[in-house]
């Protein structure tokens, strides 16, 4: 498990001001950010943050402006010096490194993409892409070859001789991305990398990033204030507020179990059907019918009546889903001659099973248009559970009403 962890942030604090140690003491005594600012005039940028970033994941640090997320990411490569705490990259504490080791780590392991692109205006696109390699002393022909490969990855190989200011915002950020990729880093830090782009280009860039990630997995730390972006690209998300990390988890975990009202408020605008999957909400409260020899429609019918259900889910001995029967379809075949008393003849034709990875959005048409709860299968085809209309609506309802109590009071009054 530990070798799985790429970056480990341990109790990291950053205080901006002339005497950080004094403010640190107050912070350790449990004073909050506002009190410390009022008493000492110093600002707590990040307060006692701890989390782990795993190898090969896209880890999104999300928060509004002033939440400390940009400070946090700059402490990962020590552009900002932490006041206290440790940042371990591959088990090496970057905070304790001397200048030489730090420069070497930045060159070999880390690269960064900036919100404002931060391309060198006096260098061509190709020279910009090769910038990191140039700093590392890679010879000209090698670095130009690798820079060109990086430009190819972002589709800008034809623009190498242009100057950055001749390119559109989206293209400039592709150059920024190429510069980050050219050094072939283990870790890519992206500070609001797509925030300055217009929404259409932003989505395109997100797709591009996911595509690149699918080709060669890197550890990506992505800073964002945009929840949709975080949900779309993040394997895991850390939510920051007022310098503290409030919650870390997968998008589903956070959506289903928000740590506090702040997180909940953040997610209020999110459409849960995009994030929750069939596997997240399916329950196995429906009646399953073992197929045994397949000639037992009467027993199946008995079982449904006894449980007061209209539909049954037929599975074989290893749990693999076979089909759905209803009380009506079972009665129909029981009236047929004895030879046709096969369960298989009672399967409903129109049933279209969902898989656990399908989003709620995708299964909505099936749930809405048929009376039976939609069966959900896992990736091996085994029966996982089912989703009824009732369950579907309840999930939507729960995600939309879990808001601060004042809101509830208002609605009951109205």
């Amino acid at each position: 498990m530990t070798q799985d962890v790429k970056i480990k942030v341990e109790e990291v604090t950053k205080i901006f001001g002339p005497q950080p140690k004094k403010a640190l003491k107050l912070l350790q005594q449990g004073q909050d950010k506002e009190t410390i600012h009022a008493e000492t005039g110093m600002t707590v940028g990040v307060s006692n943050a701890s989390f782990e970033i795993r190898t090969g994941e896209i880890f999104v640090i999300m928060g509004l402006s002033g939440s400390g997320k940009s400070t946090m990411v700059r402490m990962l490569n020590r552009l900002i010096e932490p006041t206290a705490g440790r940042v371990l990259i591959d088990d090496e504490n970057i905070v304790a490194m001397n200048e030489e080791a730090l420069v070497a780590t930045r060159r070999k392991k880390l690269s960064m993409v900036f919100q404002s692109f931060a391309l060198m205006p006096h260098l061509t696109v190709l020279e910009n892409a090769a910038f990191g390699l140039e700093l590392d002393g890679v010879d000209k022909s090698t670095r130009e070859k690798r820079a060109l490969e990086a430009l190819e990855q972002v589709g800008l190989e034809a623009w190498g001789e242009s100057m950055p200011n001749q390119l559109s915002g989206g293209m400039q950020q592709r150059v920024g991305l190429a510069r980050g990729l050219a050094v072939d880093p283990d870790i890519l830090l992206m500070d609001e990398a797509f925030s300055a782009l217009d929404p259409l280009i932003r989505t395109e860039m997100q797709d591009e990033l996911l595509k690149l990630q699918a080709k060669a997995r890197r550890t990506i730390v992505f800073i964002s204030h945009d929840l949709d972006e975080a949900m779309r690209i993040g394997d895991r998300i850390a939510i920051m507020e007022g310098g503290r990390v409030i919650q870390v988890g997968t998008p589903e975990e956070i959506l289903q179990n928000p740590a506090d009202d702040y997180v909940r408020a953040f997610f209020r605008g999110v459409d849960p059907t995009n994030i929750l999957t069939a596997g997240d909400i399916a329950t196995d409260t429906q009646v399953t019918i073992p197929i045994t020899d397949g000639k037992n429609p009467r027993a199946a019918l008995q079982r449904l009546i006894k449980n007061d259900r209209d539909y049954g889910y037929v599975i074989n001995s290893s749990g693999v889903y076979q089909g759905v029967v209803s009380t009506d379809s079972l009665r129909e075949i029981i009236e047929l001659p004895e030879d046709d008393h096969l369960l298989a003849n009672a399967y409903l034709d129109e049933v279209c099973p969902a898989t656990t990875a399908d989003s709620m959005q995708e299964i909505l048409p099936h749930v809405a248009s048929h009376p039976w709860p939609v069966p959900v299968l896992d990736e091996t085809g085994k029966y996982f559970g089912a989703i009824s209309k009732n369950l579907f609506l309840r999930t939507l309802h729960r995600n939309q009403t879990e808001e601060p109590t004042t809101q509830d009071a208002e609605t009951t009054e109205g």
Partner: protein
Amino acid sequence: MNFFAFKEKLIPLDKWVQDFVDWLVFNHRDIFQAIKAPIELCLTGFTWLFTTLPPLVVILLFAAAAWKFAGKKVCAFTVAALLLVGMLGLWQETMITLAMVISSVFFCAIVGIPLGIMAGRSNRFEIILRPALDAMQTIPPFVYLVPVVMLFSIGTVSGILATIVFALPPIVRLTSLGIRQVHPELIEAALAFGATDWQVLRKVQFPLALPSIMAGLNQTLMMALSMVVIAALIGAGGLGNPVVQGLNTLEIGLATIGGLAIVLLAMMLDRITQSFAKK
């Protein structure tokens, strides 16, 4: 009570300065003579170049430089200005002034650009340096002409030294400004990719500050030209001579052509060097 009447001198600063300069002249004149050497070398080189080359070749050289850096119009002006100066009978003086000005600017750049870079990168250094620059720009040159002559003796080199004192501040200030104007995200980007301090300066700050440094060089050049007359008072020669001589003997015509030649030279050099700043 009597104290605030300020009837008598309480701090004899004038005497201290006097004694200090006397002490320097008496004990350490050799050090100052050593400082003269490189300036003298540079000046002799340029003077030799401009005065031994036939005037036509000099005109062609400047015309070519103007054409290359600043375009046709400036080239035409350069040729016209130099021809006019020659026809006014001031060719020799103009060439000496040119050599002096170029030497002054050369040393201003050697001293001023590093100072400006340090000031641009360190607030503390900037704070210390700023009053010194203010003083250099505002003290009337006559105040330091005499000590300069006492330490470096009379002549062109002293003229250049006085010129350096007066013309140095713009290049320091504009170099510092240029360094400070580099967008902090660019420096952050360079650091994030593992740039050392020296690499940040060489690959990011200096190239991006270059237009501003060039503008500083242009200003320094103009200020050096404005010192020509004052430098002539301590025997620097060149175009300041006809002006000073004209003033002394009330030959208004002589002073006028000297002044005109200085203006023409200034405009020519300004137009050519301004084009550096734009590139």
